[in-house]
């Protein structure tokens, strides 16, 4: 069994600049009105009791039990042995079943092509030892990809973060939190 690949996100250092989202859009030549990675801003009370804003950068979480794969009527949503979930464009009919199944809103309707589009962890870049556009494009260096077992062994690693938890599909993203 190949190791599950995952995104690693050091949320406590993310400032929400959206370099990751634009790097993804430009690198993948996306229609300008869709993005496969999004930043959302939330509020929380920090360890000292102060209300602070936090940023969540998320794309497809490449879940262990992806509902999108299960619900796709055409078999167009594929889970690889290394856990990367991607759309086989030649088989997608644009029905949107994956979009409605995904609890993280990862698949997006691509108006250019009339089919769905979704983060594939830049699998073609990974194949030539390049990091995904979002990872390479973060000037604060808060994103990475690696084998999940390796990521979970990092100090402060966890499978949940601010605004993110397992909604039943086994999302693979690993959050790193070293500070209180």
């Amino acid at each position, binding site marked *: 069994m190949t190791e599950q690949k995952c995104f690693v996100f050091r949320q406590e250092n993310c*400032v929400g*600049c959206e370099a990751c989202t634009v*790097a993804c*859009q*430009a*690198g993948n030549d996306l229609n*300008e009105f869709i993005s496969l990675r999004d930043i959302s801003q939330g509020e929380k009370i*920090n360890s000292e009791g102060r209300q602070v804003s936090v940023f969540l950068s998320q794309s497809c979480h490449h879940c262990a039990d992806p509902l999108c794969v299960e619900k796709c009527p055409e078999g167009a949503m594929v889970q690889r042995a290394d856990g990367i979930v991607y759309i086989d464009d030649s088989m997608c009919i644009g029905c949107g079943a994956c979009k409605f199944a995904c609890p993280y809103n990862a698949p997006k309707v691509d108006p250019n092509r009339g089919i769905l589009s979704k983060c594939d962890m830049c699998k073609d*870049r990974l194949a030539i030892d390049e990091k995904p556009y979002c990872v390479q494009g973060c000037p604060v260096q808060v994103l990475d990809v690696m084998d999940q077992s390796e990521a979970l062994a990092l100090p402060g690693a966890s499978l949940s973060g601010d605004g993110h938890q397992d909604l039943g599909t086994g999302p693979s993203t690993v959050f790193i939190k070293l*500070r209180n």
Partner: protein
Amino acid sequence: MAMNRRSFLKGSSAFAFSASIMGCSSSDDDSPSEPPVTEPPTPEPDGIFHTTCPRNCGDRCSLLVSTKDGVAVSITGDTSHPVTAGTPCVKGHAYLESIYSPERIKQPMKRVGPRGPGATFEPITWEQANSEIAAKLNEVIETYTGNAIVPYFYSGYSGISASSGSNRFFNRIGGRNLQRNICASAGYSGMSSILGEFSGPSPEDYVNTKCFVSWGTNEQATNIHHLKFINEARDKGAKILVVNPARTPLASQADIWLQPTPGTDATLVIGIAKTLIEEGLHDTGFIDAHTQDYDALLARLEEFTHEQIEAETGVTKAQYQSFARAYAGAECAMIRIGYGLQRTLNGGRMVKAIPTLAALTGNIGKVGAGVVYLNTQAGGMFNWGYCSGNHLTPEDAVRDTVNISEIGKSLLPEDYQHEDGQVGPLAFDEPCDPIKAMIVYSSNPIAIAPDADLIEIGLMRDDLFLVGIDLFQTDTMDYVDYLLPTSSYIEQSNMIDSYHCYYAKHSTQAISPLYQSKPDTVIFQDLAKAMGYSDPEFSESIDDILRGTWQGNISYDELCVQNWDSPVVDYPYRKNYDFPTPSGKIEFKDISGTYFDPEKFNPVIDTGTPESDDFATKGMTDDEKAREFRLLSPAHPKLSNSQWANVKYIEGTFPQHTVYIHPDDAMRKGISDGDQVKLVASRYGQRDVTIQYTARIEAMTPAGTIFAWKNAWKKLNENGSNTAINQLTNSELTDMNHGSTFHSTRVDIALA
């Protein structure tokens, strides 16, 4: 927006970096070459070229441009650069979309209808453009002298090749000088008043600090590459302290965030300094050895009670005491002062106060310590006089100066009646000779300068000849008589210095100029020749200009291969405590009169604010003070001033024409999220100026202060009102060094 913006782009996503990085062409021939100025060199069609981002940012990203068949197919970070590393900021990711935008101005154009929004233009040839513009400018010079012609430019494209041609041109014609103090100038004086200089340590030293203080800056939008240094320091145990009235991302992440009422930073410094003294946290050895007028400082601190400081700043004693303990308790502490802080009437005085804390605690002259403002070390590697052709200025030229922030006053019609009885254009509150022609390049004053409506009055003058040079049809370009297409930064070579970390960088031309565009230097060279100037300085190639300007540690040819060079700086900065002040020490008290009038402002720490001072001592006007809310309008990460606003993946993706209102204020005013609101300010000449924005209810600032992103375009306002933030902002000048005062603006707000 057109759907085929990237039709030029081919196979960008999987281009492998197999070719070697190409530098610029080298030349061993010292004899003057034939001027190739109107036909810039054609780069190799396939390659990877090292370039440097020339926009208004001190990070100066090292970017690799990959080309295929003469078309740029990717722009990525040069992983070998120690600061900008493997990636640009968010804007840089959309660089290709900007360069290959279908909205680029493609050929010279002449306006055929009325000036202003919706103006129509017809294409003309470069020959016609140069001939007609040259004839008009020569006529102005003949009638009024070159002093009637002013450049308006700032940082749209910075560096040597970007400025050489124009600077030489305006020197040669003896043009009006433009005092370009819109960014950081009040702080130059504030820093220099106490430290003798405004240059300081390198941000690369942040990794060594045990306490990082972010004072009046937003790392999300400005110098984002430095965050990795700040976070590295934090991982090694550093505390992060933030002082900012705005709730920046780092304010949320910080160990301590002080949120002073805007304009009260000097009073806050007094509170922190009092704490240092009261709790014995100061470094008496350092103070005795390296500072002057400590007694005067102590006496000044005594004039304030903690109750008074709390009331004025809105920061509690407990909060600033915690700050003082964390700052003084660190083995070494580094302060970064932002520029937004000082774009206000008391900006110089606030910046002057802050280094007091470094001096009291000995946090200067050692690793991981000091005060970072703006660094000029790398700029010393260029011979700016050669670049700009200072020798070209005619000996008998009379050249007045106008200021970039109050250009609106200087462009007013000759019969304009001022409230104080003066008539016609003004500069620095005095009458000035009329400006009869203006060439706008590397700037977009209607979007980036304060009191835009006052500027518009000038731009609408029939007797003002206006030439614009730009990539795009910006708000300003709607007023010009002639519109000339400039080339983007990858279409020409350049050299440029970082003004934070210590690097001077080369940038290699990667593609030929697109369409009929030309680099600014070539445009001005051709215009000079069309006007009859035969000086060889107007026939020098860009490569030769760069070669002649370079005076670094390595040869120019080596620079082209190495891509950047650093000056030799004795480090840690000021480790010998040789401060360039008159006394050679840090001066807590400044009665020199060099930077400000000590009769007007307290020479130790002056705590006047725009709201508390009289107009004569750099306070707001009474009309301004009567408005309900202070307005802050700082930078958004997706814009560099007004640039990128119209670019795919940027335009429409952030709340550009939105005002952030504190929930308490919103409730009181009956304003809800998403409401259309009118913001009204009192601008020069008691004009009520109104813009229409979308309300967002969020505590970005303390109640009583509202917030919007700076330098938005009027024509991009989604509600169709053709209004934007700099119609509201103040164009008076700072307490020191004629800086901009965008943040000394007060407004009323109501539902639209």
